[in-house]
């Protein structure tokens, strides 16, 4: 079952990669996967990871890269704002999600009559904590996006890479979905004062669904962002 899900996810991401990146090749120096479309009109591109200046030519559908030079002066962002800002959402968002799953489970257990009311209003504390975590992680991602753009400007010299475009798009989606989830949470449409999710009205159930979908979507986007970020640091 788990293996099937993994296989399916693998196939979907493979399809997406093929459509989005087009023909790819590996940087012969650092093994980073590069998209052939990122080369300029002369077939030249600079590997964002190691700075290899590569010229590519396709013969019989085989991409033949030639390393012409190494770009050595690649400014490192001094304060490392981007990596630090990145790890706040990556670290906190899953914890917020865990809190939501706990609240969801408590709501169903209560509904099935398997547990009584949570003593001392602990669930509402958890719901508030989730909100704080969401605000911090989504808020920090603003700094992540800004510092990422800054790095792109200096370190990567505004060169277009499929990976960086995808990161920018994913960051915007993460922010939008995260802001939506925060708004729903804060509006009181999703959680009742007890901290349990609202299942009493159609509007409540719809809000629950939208909230959970936004969070789940954000988790996928975040994992994608983290993965691409990792390859931009380590090559492969």
């Amino acid at each position, binding site marked *: 079952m788990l293996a099937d899900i993994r296989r399916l996810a693998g196939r979907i991401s493979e399809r997406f990669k093929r459509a989005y990146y087009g023909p790819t090749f590996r940087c012969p120096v650092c093994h980073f996967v590069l998209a052939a479309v990122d080369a300029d009109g002369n077939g030249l591109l600079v590997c964002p990871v190691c700075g290899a200046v590569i010229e590519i030519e396709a013969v*019989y*559908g*085989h991409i*033949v890269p030639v390393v012409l030079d190494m770009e050595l002066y690649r400014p490192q962002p001094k304060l490392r704002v981007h990596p630090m800002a990145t790890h706040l959402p990556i670290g906190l968002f899953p914890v917020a999600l865990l809190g939501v799953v706990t609240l969801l489970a408590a709501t169903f257990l209560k509904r099935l009559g398997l547990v009584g009311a949570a003593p001392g209003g602990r669930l509402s504390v958890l719901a508030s904590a989730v909100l704080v975590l969401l605000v911090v992680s989504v808020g920090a991602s603003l700094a992540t996006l800004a510092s990422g753009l800054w790095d792109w400007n200096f370190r990567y010299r505004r060169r277009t890479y499929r990976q960086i475009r995808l990161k920018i798009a994913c960051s915007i989606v993460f922010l939008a979905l995260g802001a939506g989830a925060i708004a729903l949470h804060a509006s009181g449409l999703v959680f009742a004062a007890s901290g349990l999710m609202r299942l009493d009205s159609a509007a409540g159930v719809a809000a629950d669904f939208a909230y959970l979908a936004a969070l789940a979507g954000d988790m996928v986007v975040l994992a994608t962002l983290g993965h691409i970020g990792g390859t931009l640091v380590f090559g492969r």
Partner: protein
Amino acid sequence: MEFNLTPQQQERVEAAREFTREWISPNAAAHDRSGEFPLEICREAFKRGLMNSHIPKEYGGAHEAVLDHCMVMEELATGCSGIATAIDGNGLSQYPVILAGTDDQKRRFLAPMLDELMFSAYAVTEPEAGSDVARVKTTATKVGNDYVLNGVKWWITNGSVASWYFVLARTGEELTGFIVPAGSPGIVRGPKEINLGQHASNTVRVTLEDVKVPEANRLGAEGKGFDIAMATFNHTRPGVAAGANGITKAALNIALSYAKRRRTFDKKLISNQGISFKLAEMMTRLDAARFLTYKAAWLFDQGQDNAREAAQAKWFAADVAMSAAIECAQVLGGYGYTQEMPAEKLIRDAKIYQIYEGATEIQKMIIVSKLLRMREVH
């Protein structure tokens, strides 16, 4: 003598080249790394009529000439000879049926292969019998109207995916050919062998344990199996040589593209004769190998004996591919040795051409056997 391609041949070659560029080359490295069988690529090749093309017209096929097939095969193997082997592997087992099968056998086993994507395999080699096919130990014992087969077949290309096998087995002192459906009880397929190269191609052990085969699936008369198995190679060896030529062509293209662009000592690599002469030699050897290949194929298409020419082509093209792959890596220097470039794979892939469908030494033995029958060579 005519060296130009006919418009139909030109069209077919271009179609194969387009398929190679679009489907084979871009996926070659991934299949080489994963070893996954290229089912999707075969499905597309099947749709485009690039598989099973030699099946006779009466059974719905295109009855493609061996010469035309060689040109297609060279294109496919330029993308990846492992994937090309998966696409073309059926031919080796289909030919014994084309050669010696009854009308009923052709209808049951060849015709369905044109309706949907299916595979078949040539199961002759055994752990104790490779070059020396006459040593085959698998037994076929007649029981009523059936034969019962027992034995171990080894290194069977497409063995895991085949719907039926051409099996050579011993009926008493002699060897006899059988068509054995893969679903027959008693057929056990082994795991995929981890080979040096051609990782996309599927090679497995196939064990036969009391496998019942009806008499209607015997190919030709009892005792005719060895001749059928050997005659098949006259048909397939030019195609194998063409596969090797595809490797040579890939090696040449990659080395040429690289040498024109890489700089050392303030000039392009190709401006050094030490490098450019390698390319000149590769090109010349490729043409020499092609002409041997085309001649062997043409003779077959004319209905003439091509055993010597097929052996010459297979041996020579394999050696040319091996040397071209090594020279290609040399032109690329250190990059020729890393797995991130397409050169090192060619070396691994080329090696098999000196081994399967009769190793180089066996080809030379065939050439000598023909020479011995000549009083003088003209």
